[in-house]
């Protein structure tokens, strides 16, 4: 039963990375491309970003109901990066909505846009830093050890920062792939295709940097991968899919691009799960918190599972309908998108 709840949490996290990631990436992409033709990104995510966001809330709820010590230790020791990410989430969502609904006047629009872009970047970065700290294993629950050691050191290191950057590049890449599918003007398509290529290169490079940073900080990711066949297969498949992505870019095939990018992201996340589990939070004294050791009593899990299964049965078809309405049934011209 614990495994099923864990799996549902994993799926929610994965969907947050893919769908929410593309939303965050929209802001990052605007930032790095200077935001010409930015309207397309914004209009594509407007109807769905709030729903995409709920995946994160589900992860948090599952965490504090089913694995309460994990929730408690993460939010205690990683208070600072989590708070920064949260402020980013608030500013980003608000600025995005204000930009969408306010009267088109130059000055306020410029401010909303700037806030939206910068907070997209910072939120993603700090989410990545938080994840990095959970993986790295410098977290301590001996709170007498001094402020720096307890509240800064666990996340302030090469590995966590490099994972933050990796997440930024990944989200920008996802957003780029989504956006290409929404574009019609060949000039824009060319621009974004060029950017997609840069981003793929950056992603592969940054992936290597993450591994190197892990070695520097004393986490042996290379050998962990080497010893986990599932991870190796995942990484291999993600890499093998790269030529397909290239083909997709050349042919400007929207569906192929989206499927391959989604597949690669899934593989990266699965590969991470495979080396991370059964540990949920790695601790500095080696007393890691696993999903078994932190699981809530069975009757709690039982009732949560009922709620989750009913939830999934309602949510999945409805989300599908939402996407069908706004994303895939778009044989529409950009004009119509603007009108909506």
């Amino acid at each position, binding site marked *: 039963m614990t495994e099923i709840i864990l799996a549902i949490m994993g799926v929610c996290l994965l969907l947050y990375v893919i769908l929410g990631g593309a939303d965050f990436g929209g802001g990052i992409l605007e930032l790095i491309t200077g935001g010409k033709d930015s309207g397309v990104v914004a209009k594509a995510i407007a109807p769905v970003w709030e729903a995409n966001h*709920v995946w994160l809330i589900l992860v948090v709820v599952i965490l504090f109901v089913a694995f309460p010590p994990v929730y408690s230790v993460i939010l205690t020791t990683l208070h600072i990066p989590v708070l920064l990410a949260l402020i980013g989430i608030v500013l980003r969502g608000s600025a995005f909505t204000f930009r969408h609904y306010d009267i088109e006047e130059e000055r306020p629009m410029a401010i909303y846009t700037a806030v939206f872009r910068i907070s997209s970047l910072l939120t993603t970065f700090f989410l990545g830093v938080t994840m990095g700290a959970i993986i790295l294993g410098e977290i301590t629950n001996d709170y007498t050890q001094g402020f720096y050691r307890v509240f800064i050191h666990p996340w302030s290191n090469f590995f966590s920062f490099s994972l933050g950057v990796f997440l930024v590049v990944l989200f920008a890449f996802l957003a780029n792939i989504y956006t290409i599918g929404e574009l019609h003007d060949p000039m824009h398509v060319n621009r974004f295709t060029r950017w997609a290529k840069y981003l793929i290169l950056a992603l592969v490079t940054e992936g290597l940097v993450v591994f190197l940073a892990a070695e520097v900080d004393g986490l042996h990711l290379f050998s962990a991968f080497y010893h986990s066949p599932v991870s190796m297969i995942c990484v291999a498949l993600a890499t093998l899919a790269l030529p397909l992505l290239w083909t997709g870019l050349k042919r400007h095939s929207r569906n192929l691009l989206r499927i391959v990018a989604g597949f690669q992201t899934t593989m990266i996340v699965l590969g991470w799960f495979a080396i991370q589990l059964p540990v949920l939070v790695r601790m500095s004294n080696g007393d890691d918190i696993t999903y078994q050791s932190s699981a809530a009593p069975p009757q709690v899990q039982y009732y949560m599972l009922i709620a989750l299964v009913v939830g999934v049965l309602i949510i999945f078809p409805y989300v599908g309908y939402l996407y069908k309405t706004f994303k895939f049934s778009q044989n529409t011209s950009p004009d119509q998108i603007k009108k909506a």
Partner: protein
Amino acid sequence: MFNRQVKLLKTKRREMDELLAARYQMGVSLGFHIIFACIGMVMPWFMFVAEWKWLRTNNPVYLDLAKAWAKGVAIFFAVGAVSGTVLSFELGLLWPTFMKHAGPIFGLPFSWEGTAFFVEAIAIGLFLYGWNRLNKRVHLYNGLVVGIAGVLSGIFVISANSWMNNPTGFDWVNGQAENIDPVKAMFNGSWFPQAHHMVIAAFSATGFAVAGVHAILYLRNRLDIHAKAIRIALGFAAVAAIIQPLSGDHIAKNVADTQPAKLAAFESLFETTTSAPLLIGGIPDVEKREVKHGIELPGFLSFLAYGDFNTEVKGLEAFPEDEWPPVPIVHYSFQIMVAIGTFLALLGVIFLLGYYKWKHWLEKRWWLKLLVIAMPLGFLAVEAGWIVTEVGRQPWIIYGIMKTKDSLTPMPGIQYTLYLITVVYLLLSFIVVWLLGRQIKMLHTKYIQS
């Protein structure tokens, strides 16, 4: 020796400051979120009615109204959603020990809330952006889905909060929860009274706020759209405001039963008294344990709390002083809430009389001016009510089980995060109000030109 004592005192003061800062931060975050949550929960019902009327009457004014409201709702819903996300983390950022123990017990309603909120977020996406993409009926029903999911989601969150006031469904053994029964915890004895009190309050507060905004505009410019808007908003709000005192009576009896110290703080009742008087207004003096300048209605507190004029009501002195909530804040907030509730119920009665009998009342300036005065009052009462519930539970975070100070995060410097959160939320509040003003201005220029 002396130095050590000073140092001890200093640490103790620092701890108090941190605790206070954390409580303020929670208060600011909840107080901010609740307004957006209420609007996100209630406005979809208004929009639903407006759109439904448009489909029935074909009068385009109703469609304009629904669309104008939709723009406002989009802004409120987005800010409500992100500030709600913050809360789900903030509980752990500020009170990790509480969440570690309480998470599994009161988590069930949160699990259901997750689904309900998800449905709400999807439906609102379809509703706000689907005007041209969906069939009219489908669009209308999506509005209804938003409304229902919003109310459900509110009720689930309330259930979690009511458990903190009335913790059931577990045994507390040596500082650990055992034999957890999540279903019993979810349907604890305070769940129902708190749920109906809050849902009704949301309809009343939002309805009067919307009616007030349109009353200002209607006073300036007698456009039909505003008259219709006021009628829809007050149709909900008047009924809600009129039944709210009954709901309040139910919840007061529940508090008397489950949290007698809180009830005593409502009324600043220091001594245990038979046929206790109901106190209206008054300035409590905790040191001297007396209340100045209040009006006393003999026996009425006994009657309201237990249904009998002679029953004994426990005073604060029946409890150790370190388990008293901060009396003046709770007392004043309670008085403000009740006074506003009474006033709004009165307005509700006037509206219904006007609607069914003396139609010309609703066009009078005095009536519209009353609505303008009432505009912020409903939300003021909601805030006061939450202060009553939350501050009234202090010093407990789980009533009778865990003290708030024992669940505080060990992370120092909470006052800085408090400043940060306060500044962000103040800024957002200003922008939202300013944006709304711009929206309304835009609507007006469009209407007057055409």
